[in-house]
């Protein structure tokens, strides 16, 4: 894994993912280690993101590494018209590893071709966000004790949500059952259902969150965004159909955990937050350990 870029979830093998997850577990037990004290890591956020950037930067700081970079394109030379290629060629001469988020799709793959230092894609538009997938896998394994044979409910915007698409692809390796809950206009795209059909994985589609939840091991909530609807009436009609509240968790399985990539708006009622089944803030915390593990393996400080 040393010097390998992570751009898309398909770049790593199953074994490599397990290596990251195992190491993340060790970091969770002992998060403050001076493993990256000799490294400078660039954090290039051409597009703002609170959680992902802070999570990466926390991971670097806890490991004693140094961070350079910017949190939005306006504070970089991009605002002077510099090309992505030139920015990457320059920064790759400063830093040992580049973490980047950019709204242009394929930008991270291109950066990995241009750069002589490894790149971690922290999101390229609607395309890929592999470290989110990594922390989701870590969170599922940690909360359930396994990734195998789980019943997963994916809820909300299943059409445009890149996190649910990556999660679907990744979890398909572990014999899951999927339940898709979305408004009719935001259903899981056919290409992903075809993929599940090919792999012989069972899935069910629902338009409502109801007592079918009693079978769930994981409920993965996502935001239904107003801007996805051309007709505002349509949005008003569906927006409350995908809100999870505490009462709905009665009669659900003991091991059920509620996940959400965050930020949340109103799709999980705040009365769920104190329920032991709520897992989304822990999930965010897990992102730090998963990213610590990933960076250490890519930089080769841990084998």
């Amino acid at each position, binding site marked *: 894994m040393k010097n390998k870029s992570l751009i*898309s979830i398909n770049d790593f093998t199953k074994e490599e993912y397990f290596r990251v997850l195992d190491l993340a577990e060790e970091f969770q037990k002992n998060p403050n280690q001076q493993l990256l004290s000799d490294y400078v890591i660039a954090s290039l956020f051409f597009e703002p993101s609170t959680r992902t950037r802070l999570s990466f930067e926390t991971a670097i700081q806890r490991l004693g590494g140094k961070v350079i970079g910017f949190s939005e394109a306006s504070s970089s030379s991009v605002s002077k018209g510099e090309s992505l290629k030139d920015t990457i060629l320059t920064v790759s001469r400063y830093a040992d590893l580049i973490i980047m988020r950019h709204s*242009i*799709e*394929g930008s991270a*793959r*291109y950066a990995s071709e241009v750069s002589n230092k490894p790149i971690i894609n922290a999101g390229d*538009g609607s*395309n890929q966000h592999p470290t989110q997938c990594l922390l989701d896998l870590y969170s599922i394994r940690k909360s359930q004790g396994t990734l195998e044979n789980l019943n997963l409910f994916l809820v909300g915007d299943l059409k445009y949500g890149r996190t649910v698409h990556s999660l679907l692809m990744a979890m398909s390796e572990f014999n899951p059952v999927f339940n898709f809950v979305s408004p009719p206009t935001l259903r899981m795209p056919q290409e992903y259902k075809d993929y599940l059909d090919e792999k012989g994985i069972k899935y069910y589609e629902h338009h409502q969150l109801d007592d079918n939840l009693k079978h769930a091991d994981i409920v993965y909530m996502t935001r239904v965004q107003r801007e996805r609807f051309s007709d505002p009436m349509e949005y008003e009609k569906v927006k409350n159909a995908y809100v999870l509240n505490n009462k709905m968790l009665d009669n659900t399985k003991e091991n059920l955990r509620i996940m959400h990539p965050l930020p949340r708006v109103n799709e999980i009622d705040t009365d769920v937050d104190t329920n032991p089944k709520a897992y989304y803030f822990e999930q965010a915390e897990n992102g730090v350990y998963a990213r610590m593990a990933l960076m250490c393996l890519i930089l080769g400080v841990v084998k």
Partner: protein
Amino acid sequence: MKSELKVKAIEKGTVIDHIKPEALYKILSIIGIEKIDTQVFIGNNLDSEKYGKKAIIKIADKFPSIDDINKIALIDPHAVINIIRDYQVVEKKKVELPEKIEGFVKCINPKCITNHEKVETKFKVVIKDEKVNLKCYYCEKITGQDNIEVIR
């Protein structure tokens, strides 16, 4: 009108035959017909036993590169390329789809890096329901057969 559509024979060069009429103009564009300075004859909506109607392109004194053949395959995988010498067909080439397409097709995704910076496009060829789909190496989006646009 029919008699006017007969296409002149060439002594040597290339005949691209059995083109579907709807693919003709795209093929002309993709092979860069306007840059060819030898004699070119084009026929469209000719009678075809196979498809009912077909188009044909005859280009004197030029022979196609592998790249040209790949480009034609992308637009019309049923086209046949004949190499002509002394008015005879000396070689028949069935066009074959390559696994990868580099450099001449535009990615349909306006948010793709290849449409924002000077990056040569790269696609993986994926056949789905008998249609050619091009999966962008960068943004991973699919450019479908009907949306293929050539970079000039």
